[in-house]
């Protein structure tokens, strides 16, 4: 079976009769089997996916026009997205054995277009981490080099696409959790605008930052997936009622653009010299193609990470309060009363990083500290929003490295949380502001690992971002498979 990188090529073969949904599912199941050591999946829905494939093949046979737009798309979803009747644990012991009673709106919309969900993917516990090492189910390994991390928190989804175990995969991005692992694994990672895709059925980490995104091999697949998932949802009051353009039909690009890059980012001391050089080469190539690319000042860069961690941990400390061992999930067997039920269930159920963030979030919201931390961070957020929107008054896109370097060795960052937090420096801005961002593959580092480059644009301008991205991967930096 060929390694498909677009749904359109799969659907062409389905129409030609050279493949079938069952054959596709079998192929991907075999790939999963072969790459089991990467630990990309928490659970594989093998029998169910095969059965669904059979049903879809039959449906297509009886009436070719009756199948949905995602006919032939075998996908995976991060283990923080609800899928009715299936387990969802956020890679945490505290939700061991929990099954959701409903499907996330995004998942439901993909299913309605005949996507086949082959499994749920591994991630950092409650999406807290940049390495996938905080999962209760063990670390996921980078398929480019299994001694390296895949990035996080949606590392499992990135690897699932990277290792060709599914066509595309849903992740979530609170501070870079789609774009950074996409960069580490050499795939495309799209984070839409806040409010573009419903968060209903996404296990909340930082509610005002969280957004469902997609990993794919092609921009057209990312565009189609977003087009289907996006749009207002009565179950999520933060979704926008703005109409959803047909992104997948709007990928032609023939304009000259104005692109800004932040001097503070490209000259940041944490940036790997080779990554920097690749980005600079990219800038030259874009200029040569007639685009205006300019360096701009943005002196707030170093405030982004601290403000982000204050705000997300504050929200997380509250969002994770529901995991108390009372109604569902892990309940300590050692508890003798209510207080002990809370203390012991949560002590046993949560991992170290999650506890660290709950404590940090609880602290910054405490009486006497609220103004110094939470309020201050909110002001920083508003300032960053304002300054970023100002950039888009003059520029179409912001160019930025997706991560300071390439995937690092397993087990090297977990002891230094601050170093790990700083690895989000280039991705967090999009979440702070609520704008869309995409990470595109930019070849390989001399260490053999993938590099990613990121583009951002103004809120709800995904159509523009995707069209540019499609141009970029075709003309500026073709993706090597």
């Amino acid at each position, binding site marked *: 079976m060929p390694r498909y990188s677009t749904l359109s090529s799969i659907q062409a073969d389905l129409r030609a009769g050279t493949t079938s949904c069952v054959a596709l599912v079998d192929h991907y199941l075999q790939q999963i089997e072969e790459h089991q050591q990467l630990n990309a999946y928490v659970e594989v829905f093998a029998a169910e996916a095969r059965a669904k494939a059979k049903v879809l093949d039959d449906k297509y046979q009886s009436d070719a026009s009756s199948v949905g737009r995602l006919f032939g798309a075998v996908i995976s979803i991060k283990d923080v*997205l609800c899928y009715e009747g299936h387990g969802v644990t956020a890679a945490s012991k505290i939700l061991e054995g929990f099954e959701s009673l409903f499907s996330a709106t995004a998942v439901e919309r993909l299913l309605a277009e005949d996507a086949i969900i082959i499994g749920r993917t591994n991630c950092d516990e409650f999406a807290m981490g940049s390495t996938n090492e905080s999962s209760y189910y063990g670390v996921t390994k980078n398929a480019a080099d299994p001694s390296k991390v895949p990035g996080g928190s949606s590392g499992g989804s990135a690897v699932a696409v990277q290792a060709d175990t599914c066509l595309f995969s849903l992740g979530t991005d609170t501070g870079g959790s789609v774009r950074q692992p996409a960069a580490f694994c050499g795939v495309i990672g799209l984070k839409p605008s806040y409010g573009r895709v419903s968060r209903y059925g996404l296990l*909340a980490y930082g509610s005002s930052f969280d957004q469902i995104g997609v990993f794919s091999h092609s921009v057209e697949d990312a565009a189609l997936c977003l087009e289907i998932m996006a749009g207002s949802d009565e179950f999520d009051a933060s979704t926008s009622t703005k109409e959803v353009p047909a992104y997948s039909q709007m990928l032609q690009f023939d304009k000259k653009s104005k692109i800004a890059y932040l001097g503070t980012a490209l000259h940041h001391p944490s940036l790997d010299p080779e990554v920097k050089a690749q980005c600079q080469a990219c800038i030259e190539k874009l200029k040569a193609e007639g685009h205006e690319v300019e360096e701009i000042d943005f002196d707030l860069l170093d405030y982004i990470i601290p403000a982000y961690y204050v705000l997300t941990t504050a929200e997380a400390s509250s969002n994770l309060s*529901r995991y108390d061992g009372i109604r569902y999930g892990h309940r300590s067997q050692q508890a003798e009363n209510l207080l002990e039920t809370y203390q012991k269930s949560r002590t046993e159920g949560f991992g170290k990083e999650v506890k660290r963030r709950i404590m940090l979030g609880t602290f910054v919201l405490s009486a006497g500290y609220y103004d110094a931390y939470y309020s201050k961070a909110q002001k920083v957020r508003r300032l960053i929003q304002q300054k970023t929107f100002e950039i888009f008054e003059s520029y179409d896109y912001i160019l930025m490295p997706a991560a300071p370097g390439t995937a690092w060795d397993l087990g090297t960052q977990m002891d230094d949380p601050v170093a790990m937090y700083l690895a989000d420096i280039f991705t967090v801005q999009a979440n702070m502001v609520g704008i869309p961002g995409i990470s595109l593959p930019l070849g390989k580092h001399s260490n053999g690992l993938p590099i990613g480059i990121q583009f951002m644009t103004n809120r709800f301008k995904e159509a523009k971002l995707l069209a540019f991205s499609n141009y970029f991967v075709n003309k500026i930096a073709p993706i090597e498979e």
Partner: protein
Amino acid sequence: MEVYDKYETVIGLEVHVQLDTVSKAFCGDSTTFGAEPNTHVSSISLGHPGTLPKLNERQIEFAVRLGLALNCEISPVSYFDRKNYFYADLPKGYQITQDRLPICIGGYLPIWVDGKEKKVRIHHIHMEEDAGKSMHDDASPYSFIDLNRAGVPLLEVVTEPDLRSAEEVDAFMSGMRQLVQYLEVCDGNMEQGSMRCDCNVSVRLHGAEKYGERCEIKNLNSMRYAKRAIAYEVKRQIDLLEAGGSVEQQTLNFDPGTGITSPLRDKEDAHDYRYFPEPDLPPVVVSEEYVADVQANLATLPWVMLERLKTEFGLSDYDADILYGNKEVAQYFLDFTKVNQNYKACANLIINKINPYCQEHQLSIAAFPVAQKVLAQFIELIDSGKVASAMAYQRILPVMIEHPEKAPLAIAEELNLIQSTDTNFLEDLVNEVIAAHPDKVKAYQKGKKGLLGFFMGEVMKKSKGKAEPKSTNQLLRHKLEA
């Protein structure tokens, strides 16, 4: 006693009004009271992973209604916040409430104590969701949780410390209950927990400027308990001060069994609720047009109704007081006056017969079996002098209730109760009676005028109740004094 008289009681209230919406504040679960435990629940009200609150717009309308009725300022933009704490009946580990900027600010509720009006100032009204219910059974090592109530919308009305006695608290709570009923935002039923209040009680020497340290008595779900709790707490605080001690800020629980308040927690281990903006809900925006629309459709307020009953319909204080106490009854009266203009008679009929009948049979007054049009005929029958009032009430009304389709006049005829004003018929009766009691006639003529009643009675007896009293009276007097 003088010791206690030295002190002034100061009370502020936090009144929880459970809103009469069909579904919960942030999901579609039913809010009906009294269902089997844990049957009105869903993924959202159980706080399942991935769920988000879905605003029920109705609660905003209700909040604006109450705010307008209480003369509050309606915030054009208000916010939801999260109040974080752990408890088994709080599924999400936080309560969605309004902390920074609530929907209604300021305002007052007029109350009447000893015939005098007092305006009790409102600090603010905010929206929030209710928690579930915990049931503790001493015989079991477990507590039981019912989450039917979790997520039911509440308005919390917070007053300024303007109340000075348990009687004023009673008047305030009655006023609130009546108001929420008039506005149709809550059934006002304290027993079912639709209205509850927390009392902040402190005492200070009369004339003192500063308030004393206050204690909060939680979850008083009946006025009887509230009065007892306040009386106990006031005495406890004064005794403490008189003994040279000081009152400590505490949260108290009142045990109706013992009549004693006891600390739930004190200031040191007071909760830090870590309020912060609810990121899952956008700001609540209330436009001027919206407020104007709610105002235009606002029900008549109770105190306006009371005034109207007295001035427009000329009812006595007593009658008006009874009728306006319950919105349905007042409305029933208003409807009644459209078909019969003897307002006093309408009021009497409602107060003496219709309302007691409905209460006894647990009917809403609108469900009284006899139509108002027919009841109007009943009043006309009395007013026209065809049937004696007492006869009508005693004999005709019961038949009307049994046979609501029958006209009162027809019943009167069937029962042979039509009074006679036929002078020949009356004259014969009067002559007969005078002839039968010559000594009494003499006594009357000598000045024992009180005997007129005796003669009236005799005539009535002979007429079997059909003699019309006024004409009979005139005729008797004429004959006796001739």
